[in-house]
């Protein structure tokens, strides 16, 4: 295996082990006031750890495949598979979370108790993360629509000068836009479905409503952080591809004079590149951010109960 492949493998291992370590730490620092609470906390942490590993393995696995190749898979994946990889990984991430929610510990005992409180998706999903997720999705769909409208083919952008064609490819034409748009819609619907499962899962016994809601909000935040990461990476990749293609199109046509260059488009390509990097960094930073507010709420609630 080449040095590049080894580097990618080490990076992938680090990317999987780091969130697992954070999740284990997260699990240990929260006070569980009852055995039922401890069981619920354990059940909330385990699927989150597995789901995070699945998400990162999906994203980094494809990245490794593209950049370094995999000996067992000599053929590189096509562009659509790479473009859809983060969304596919996010769907697998949601599937693991859904299994976790559907197998959540159910109440036991002869006498059951429940609070007459309503819980909606808005209660369990922090608003800033919901807004961010919808923003990434909206920006991505808008970019895909703009790409489809301006493309001169399914996946290329042509510039014709004096009968000569300068072709920029790959470009966000319908070749990429259709599966990605379908993927975004499915991902948002799946996210809403899993958040609904979080809102309606059985309440934790032996704790106050605040403790239970804090645990739900922690799960909701984890789900949204993963989904927004997938959308941000897809958006960043789409912007990166657009920047690359615009840069190619802006270059002078080799057989003609240097005056055939389009500096305005070159500047636009640079701007798109800056936005792509910013989106990627922002999405990653939000995904790595720890939800500090929720454990404090949990601890405060536990203290109040005690």
């Amino acid at each position: 295996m080449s040095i590049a492949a080894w580097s990618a493998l080490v990076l992938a291992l680090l990317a999987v082990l780091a969130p697992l370590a954070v999740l284990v730490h997260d699990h240990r620092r929260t006070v569980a006031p009852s055995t039922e609470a401890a069981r619920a906390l354990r059940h909330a942490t385990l699927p989150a750890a597995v789901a995070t590993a699945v998400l990162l393995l999906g994203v980094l696995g494809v990245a490794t495949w593209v950049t370094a190749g995999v000996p067992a898979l000599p053929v590189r994946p096509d562009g659509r598979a790479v473009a859809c990889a983060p969304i596919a990984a996010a769907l697998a991430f949601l599937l693991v979370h859904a299994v976790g929610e559907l197998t959540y510990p159910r109440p036991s005992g002869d006498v059951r108790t429940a609070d007459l409180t309503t819980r909606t998706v808005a209660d369990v999903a922090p608003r800033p993360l919901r807004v961010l997720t919808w923003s990434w999705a909206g920006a991505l769909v808008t970019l895909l629509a703009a790409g489809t409208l301006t493309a001169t083919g399914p996946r290329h952008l042509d510039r014709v000068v004096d009968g000569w064609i300068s072709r920029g490819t790959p470009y966000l034409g319908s070749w990429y836009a259709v599966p990605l748009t379908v993927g975004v819609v499915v991902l948002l619907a799946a996210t809403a479905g899993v958040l609904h499962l979080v809102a309606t899962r059985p309440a934790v016994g032996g704790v106050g409503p605040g403790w239970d809601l804090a645990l739900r909000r922690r799960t909701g935040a984890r789900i949204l952080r993963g989904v927004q990461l997938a959308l941000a990476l897809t958006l960043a990749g789409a912007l990166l591809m657009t920047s690359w293609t615009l840069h190619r199109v802006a270059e002078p046509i080799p057989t003609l004079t240097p005056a055939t260059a389009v500096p305005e488009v070159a500047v636009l390509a640079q701007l798109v590149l800056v936005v792509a990097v910013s989106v990627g960094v922002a999405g990653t930073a939000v995904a790595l951010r720890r939800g500090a507010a929720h454990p404090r709420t949990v601890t405060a609630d536990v203290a109040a109960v005690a």
Partner: protein
Amino acid sequence: MSLRVHVDLTSSTPHYEQIRAQVAALVVAGRLVDGERLPTVRALANDLGIAAGTVARAYRELEASGLATTRRRLGTVVTAPAVGGGRQDVAEAAVRLVDVARAAGVSDEEVQDLVASALLTLPRRPATTSPTPAR
């Protein structure tokens, strides 16, 4: 302070009736106010670890007695009975009855039996209707 319902799985009272009675008591006592949303059928069933159909039946019974109504997009909401008139007097008499019973050491079950007995033995009077204003 949160309002809670309890379901005793070993009780001979059907589960849906236990839920209905407790929610009805909270509504009549004014703890659940008019327009307040009740949890969704699935959420309450999950919290209690019972079948969703049981909670759905409890909600249907509440709707039939005019204590709740299901609205599109809002779910099931409380429709508290109008306060005042004869109903207010009955509510105050019920409070006095419970107060006297507890002071005398009578258990809650005995109080319920006494009220049931009174309902059975006393003849029902014809309901007084208020005159309808002429148009």
